[in-house]
Structure formats: C-alpha cells, structure tokens
C-alpha cells in the first residue's frame, strides 16, 4: 500500500513540476495571446459565465427563449 500511494504521489508531484515549468516556458517563449478570453471561452463551469454587453445579452435572451419554445414544440 505504501508503495502504491507513494507512486501516485510521486507521479503527481512530478506532474506539478512539469506543469509549473511548462507554464513558465509558455509565458516566456509562447505566442502573445488575448488571455482574457481564453479561460472563459472554454470554462463550462456554471457561475463563471462572462457578462457580455447588456444590449447584446437581451437580444440573445429573447432569441434563446424563442428557440427553446420552438424546440420544445417540435422536438418531442
């Protein structure tokens, strides 16, 4: 058991080191990127939703509701 958990820990600790090095390398030599977007664009986690321009959002909300209603009627 000791060996097993030891291997798991060692593996993940090395991974920590690799990730830290990787992030530093990317920060130094990687291409400049509009970072602000990158996290939110792929984060499917609820509560992390970005707030787009309010006007746009209202249009989207209206259309979203209509699409949902449309699908509900036609899906079934």
């Amino acid at each position, binding site marked *: *058991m000791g*060996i*097993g*958990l030891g*291997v*798991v*820990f*060692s*593996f*993940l*600790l*090395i*991974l*920590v080191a*690799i*990730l*830290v090095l*990787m*992030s530093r390398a*990317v920060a130094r030599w*990687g*291409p400049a*990127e509009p*970072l*602000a977007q*990158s*996290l939110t664009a*792929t*984060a*499917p*986690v*609820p*509560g*992390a939703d970005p707030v787009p321009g309010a006007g746009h959002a209202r249009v989207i909300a209206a259309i979203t509701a209509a699409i949902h209603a449309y699908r509900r009627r036609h899906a079934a």
Partner: protein
Amino acid sequence: MESALTLWQSTGIANLTWRELLMLLVGCGLIYLAIAKRFEPLLLLPIGFGAILCNIPLAGIGGPDGMLGMIYAVGIETGIFPLLIFLGVGALTDFSALIARPSTLVLGAAAQFGIFATLLGALALNLVPGFDFSLSDAAAIAIIGGADGPTAIFLASRLAPDLLGAIAVAAYSYMALVPIIQPPIMRALTTKAERGIVMEQLRPVSRLERILFPLMLLLLCAMLLPAAAPLIGMLTLGNLLRESGVVDRLSRSAQNEIINVVTILLGLAIGSKLSGELFLTTQTLGILILGAFAFAIGTGAGVLMGKIMSRLTGRKVNPLIGAAGVSAVPMAARVVNKVGLEENHHNFLLMHAMGPNVAGVIGSAVAAGVLIALVTP
C-alpha cells in the same frame, strides 16, 4: 394436456429461481434510484435494465450467445467501452483550473489514499469467514474509492470480471451519494475558520498551455507508468481533440455520439455480470461496505491534505476543496461549493474545487495503473 404442460414449462414463472426473482427486484431498485432519486441515471438506468434482462428465466440474454453476453465480450472484456468513455470524459473536461494551480494535484493524490486503504481492508476482510478475496479482487474493489466509474469498470474487467457487476453498482451508487457521504466528513475535519477561507481568483490559462497539458501528461505516463497508458492515453486524446481547436467535429463526436452510444451498451453489458450467482453473495455485501469505507477515507484524506496545504500556504487554500479530490466530477466540486457557501454566502469555491476534482480523475487513473502493475506479475 401434455401440450398445456409444455406451454407452462416454457413460461418464465415456471422456471423462476429465487435468485432471479431477487435480481429482478435489484434491477427495479436500481431503476427506481436512477429515475426517482436521480442516482447517476445515465449509467444506473441501463445497468438496472441489464440486470432485469439477464435474469429473465430461459432467455439467456446475459449468456455467451445472448445479446448482453456478446456486447460484454466485445466491449468490456476487451476494455474498449470504458476507454471510449474516458475519451469522451477527456473531451468534456476543462483542465484550466488544474493548469492554473498545479499544486491541487497533490489533493487529487491524497484522495487516492482511500483506494489503498481499501485494498488492505479487503485483504483484512478475508479473516472474516465467508470472504475470500484474492489480491486481484481486492485491487478491483479498492478502485471504488477512486470515485470514477469508467476507471473502476476498466480495472474490474481486467482483474476481477466476476465482481464487475457489484463493483460497478457500488461505484456509481456511491458517486451518487457524494452529497450525503461527504459533507459530514468535511465538517468534522475542518474548523469554521478554515471553511470560510476565501481563495484568490485563478489566473487565466493560455490556449497553448491547454494544448500542451494532455501531451505532457501522456508522455509522463509513458515514461513512468506504462500500465496506466490506456486510461491516461484516451483521457488525454479526448482532451487534445477538445483543446487543439482544429478537429471540432471529432471533439463533438467524442463528447456526444461516442459517449452516449457506449454508455447505453456499457450499462446493459454490466447487467450480464449481475446474475444471481455472481451478485447475491456475501462478497457483494463486503464490496458495498468496503466501497463506502473507501469513499469516506478518500474524502477525509483529501480534506486533511487540504488542511496541510492551507497551513503551508498561509491560509490561502480552503481545505474543503481537498474533498473534491476523490473525482466524482462535477458532483464533488459542487458539494464543496455548497458546504463553503454555508459558512460564507459570498465564497464561491466551485472553480477552485475543479482543480482537485479533475486531478482526482488523473489520480485514480494513475492508481489504477499502479494496481495493474502491482497485481499482474
């Protein structure tokens, strides 16, 4: 008269054994839990249905020539189905939170303590009359503590196919019970102050980091633990399809078609291991008890490691997020969020718990590799 007798003898009632009857009830029970209680319905509904199908007298649906038996041979005995599910999991998982704070991998490692403690527990249970688990059996049971369905099925199909039914049922049931099992343990092991710790916002993660992550993980696995390569390989392939941004149609396919179709067939095929002879044994009872034990231990270990990290970082880490290290994505992270909100209505831990949560997936895949390497000589 004779023909009526023949007819009667071809009915199910005339051939029903008590084991089959009980297993039909178990199947209905699993379906009830899936629908009424929403216990991991995506898998428990097909598993429960499979249990009913393969316990219909005379039909032999779970036998070698029956539909479920054939699906089992093609999909589970070969390991293909759980690996394809892992492909989909990879394509569905965002590792950003982990990349932004790699130290949470330690929490995902700590929560695997449940697995290894249960391994010893299973071997210790052999002292009780009626139990006789081999080392392979014990390893397959222990993986329940990984709180990761496909990993558990993959390992059990390799090491202890006869126990696969019970192990899969236990794994998914306890994953569904995470909101009930974890909070008391989390509260018992932390102080009010600790639970109230507010964590710094995560830094944004660049696209290049997200692309390199699965490759780094795969290469590390290839170098250190080849036994975990199938699981880690499919997880990272799915994630690379997702993050590369150049193969969206493949990524969507892995997230939808593949995972959905395989889930139905996988669930049904597990039913072929839910026959009375395999399931209605004292061993199943042992598996259920050990599974609960594994979950509890894993949660506790994660929280304790969270406390250590909290001290070492000068209270920058909320120890609750350690509980998410058992995997059970995303339920465990949501539970952390909920328990955190009880102390402080503005402290959203969800994003912070996603790191240990996905680290737990990697951790249990690594643990599965270790178990395979230890058990198969």
